[in-house]
């Protein structure tokens, strides 16, 4: 007996490969397993207003660059008459609007779609920055030294020092020293100064508080300190390390948020709304050209994609046929004819497809009876049938069109040659075995076709087979496993029942 080990190894390998690739692509590329999954997207609009003074205008806005916890999906600028470009310089991104000459109130828009992402860390920085020199007025200098000493006594690292310092400054009942420091300046400035004085490189960055449907918002300051080769973010309003989830870090470092040359009274304000987008669409825009993306068929032109959409459904149909024939034991006319019919149903819709298929085959059978009297050679007879089927289909399409069915054209999706052969086989079956067998086999074929159609038209199977073609490996494994089935078919439980019942009697 041949060893079954290699067979089962192959089957296991197929299932394993299919599952793993699908999982990997799900995790890495974010392709959802279920169709119609939605994901939240923030649409943020920055609006720049200024008054131009009849001179060349150059407005430059700092843009978010890889903000922690968010990823930019797409961005665009809308400003009539202005040239726009995004300039990356020294790791900083700025959007620049320019116009030869402008006068009066000007409004510029920058829009970006952002989604939450998992990378919460800021990127590593190679060059360690130096703490900035700090200057205090006489009494404030002493108070500052005292506060730093207090914080240092309760901390062991730059992070814990920062936390401790912020706790001191945010204390609702400030001590004498902190009170003096906070008297003339906002807490954020004081924090920044104290940190730099304590020898920790620190800077103020600007973040945007995300809240659905808010307009005319401005940026809120956050503190960043440099430790462990990267900038760490602290929220100065709470004193916590890290950003709260709804803050988008817009501007980082100490460069200006907005520069306008050739204009006055410039200001920038933000509005935002929360949108939902299909997760699948997101995955495609976000991860195009990354990692396992080449495995998907999304890289192909749309026309080829729609072909693959059908092609990748074929294995499912094949599995249905194998199941119905091996396990159930249904008779069909032509082994895989049902799949082709099912594919045609996908294009025509079920009821219309069934009606047109049955009427074409029925009319074909009538014509075939006449053909058999003509005593034609087989090949010529089939060819005659093919031509006649073409005419029948066109005729049906025309009638359908006149009756107002828009599906007229879709009937042409039926595989003509297959239909011609079906008619030929059915007709021979009719002559040799009688109409009963024609109904049995024809009905069996249609039943399998409808079943395969019902499975294939499920949004889930369409989604999975198209976005995870590797899952077809699992179908392949199942088909191979069914090929090893030596048990009884369902139909045999009926076929041999007489023998068993007789024994009993």
């Amino acid at each position, binding site marked *: 007996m041949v060893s079954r080990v290699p067979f089962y190894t192959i089957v296991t390998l197929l299932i394993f490969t299919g599952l793993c690739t699908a999982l990997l692509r799900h995790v890495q590329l974010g392709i959802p397993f279920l169709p119609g999954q939605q994901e939240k997207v923030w649409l943020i609009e920055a609006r720049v207003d200024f008054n131009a003074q009849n001179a060349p205008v150059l407005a430059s806005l700092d843009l978010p660059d890889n903000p922690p916890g968010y990823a930019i999906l797409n961005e665009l600028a809308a400003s009539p008459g202005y040239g726009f470009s995004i300039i990356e310089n020294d790791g900083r991104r700025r959007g620049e609007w320019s116009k030869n000459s402008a006068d009066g109130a000007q409004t510029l828009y920058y829009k970006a779609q952002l989604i939450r992402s998992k990378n919460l860390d800021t990127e590593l920085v190679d060059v360690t920055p130096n703490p900035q020199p700090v200057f205090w007025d006489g009494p404030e200098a002493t108070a500052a030294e005292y506060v730093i000493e207090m914080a240092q006594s309760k901390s062991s690292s730059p992070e814990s020092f920062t936390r401790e310092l912020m706790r001191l400054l945010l204390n609702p009942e400030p001590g004498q020293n902190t009170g003096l420091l906070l008297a003339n300046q906002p807490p954020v400035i004081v924090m920044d100064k104290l940190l730099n004085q304590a020898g920790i490189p620190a800077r103020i960055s600007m973040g945007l508080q995300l809240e659905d449907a808010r307009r005319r918002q401005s940026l809120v300051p956050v503190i960043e300190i440099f430790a462990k080769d990267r900038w760490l973010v602290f929220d100065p309003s709470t004193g916590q390390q890290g950003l709260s989830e709804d803050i988008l870090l817009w501007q980082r470092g100490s460069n200006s948020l907005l520069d306008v040359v050739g204009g006055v009274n410039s200001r920038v304000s933000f509005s935002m709304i929360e949108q939902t987008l299909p997760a699948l669409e997101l995955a495609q825009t976000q991860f195009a050209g990354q990692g396992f993306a080449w495995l998907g068929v999304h890289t192909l032109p749309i026309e080829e994609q729609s072909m693959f959409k059908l092609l990748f459904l074929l294995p499912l149909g094949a599995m249905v046929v194998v199941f119905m024939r*091996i396990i159930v*034991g249904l008779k069909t006319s032509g082994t895989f004819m049902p799949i082709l019919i099912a594919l045609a149903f996908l294009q025509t819709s079920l009821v219309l497809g069934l009606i047109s298929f049955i009427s074409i085959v029925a009319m074909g059978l009538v014509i075939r009876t006449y053909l058999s009297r003509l*005593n034609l*050679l*087989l*090949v010529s007879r089939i060819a005659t049938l093919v031509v006649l089927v073409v005419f029948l289909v066109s005729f049906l399409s025309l009638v359908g069109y006149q009756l107002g069915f828009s599906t007229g054209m879709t009937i042409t999706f039926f595989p003509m040659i297959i239909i011609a052969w079906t008619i030929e086989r059915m007709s*021979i079956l009719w002559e*040799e*075995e009688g109409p009963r067998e024609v109904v049995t086999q024809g009905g069996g074929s249609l039943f399998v076709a409808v079943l395969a159609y019902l499975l294939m038209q499920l949004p889930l199977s369409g989604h999975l087979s198209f976005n995870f073609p590797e899952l077809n490996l699992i179908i392949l494994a199942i088909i191979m496993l069914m*090929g*090893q*089935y*030596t*048990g*009884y*078919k369902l139909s*045999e*439980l*009926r*076929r*041999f*029942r*007489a*023998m*068993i*019942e*007789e*024994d009993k009697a």
Partner: protein
Amino acid sequence: MNWVSPFRLAKAGILGMNCRNVDFIGRYNLRRFYPLVDDKLKTKLLAEEYGVATPTLRFVVKTQHEIGHIEDRLMDLNGFAIKPSRGSGGKGILVIIGRKGNQFIKSSGTEVSIEDIRRHLTNTLAGLYSLRGAPDVAIIEDLIEFDDTFKGYSHEGVPDIRIIVFRGYPVMAMLRLATHASDGKANLHQGAVGVGLDIATGQGLKAVQFSNPITLHPDTKMPLGDLKIPDWKNMLLLASRCYEMSNLGYIGTDIVLDKSRGAQLLELNARPGLSIQVANGKGLLPRLRHIEKIRKPHRLADDRVEYAMATFHSQGI
């Protein structure tokens, strides 16, 4: 509903289609030997080589232009059978038992003209009756004059005996009688009567039509119970020798009994059907497994037949 549990089928040793295909046909029948049995002409020539008796071959029609003057060659034949060489399931077999003027008389009694015969030959050559519609040749052979034992037992058509031969051992046999319902054909699913035969004696065991037990022939009303095949051992020998001839481990042999020439091999089948179990009221599986377990199979057909007759009697496995 009228279903039985698969466990009871297994207990009765019924061989299912999937099990037959995977465990027996797939394992014991090598693909490259199939053409020998799928092509009746090849089978016939091979049988002659091995001294296995078959109906006399008159001539072969291979090309379309031969059909034009076919009447000259049919002139001196009174009764004959036209068969597609690669037909399956008894399709395309035309049996002419005599003439009436210019007309030919079919086994069913209806008359056909030479034109009908020409069309039949054309269809055959074009591959209408062959597997997958491949072009075919038609063989014209002598009519079988069946033995008197079967007088009254067959309505039209020749009663033939199907013997399943596994590794050279005849394991199960049945007699197939054409009926009016089966239109002279000997296939059980078309309505022919199947009579299970005791391997040990050739005695009829039980008869079925459309899976239902019957006692009388539905057309001629002859009792089926007391049928006994004459010269039974020779018939088993003929079947057993087909194993060496075809190199196929699991075959169905179709044998007819000619009045004057004795047992004749009609055709071999590499995928014999399962209804033989219904006609015998017995599952094939225990017998097949028994043969599978034989370590040293007998070399000679005689020994194999002796062994089978001693082992597979109606009271045994």
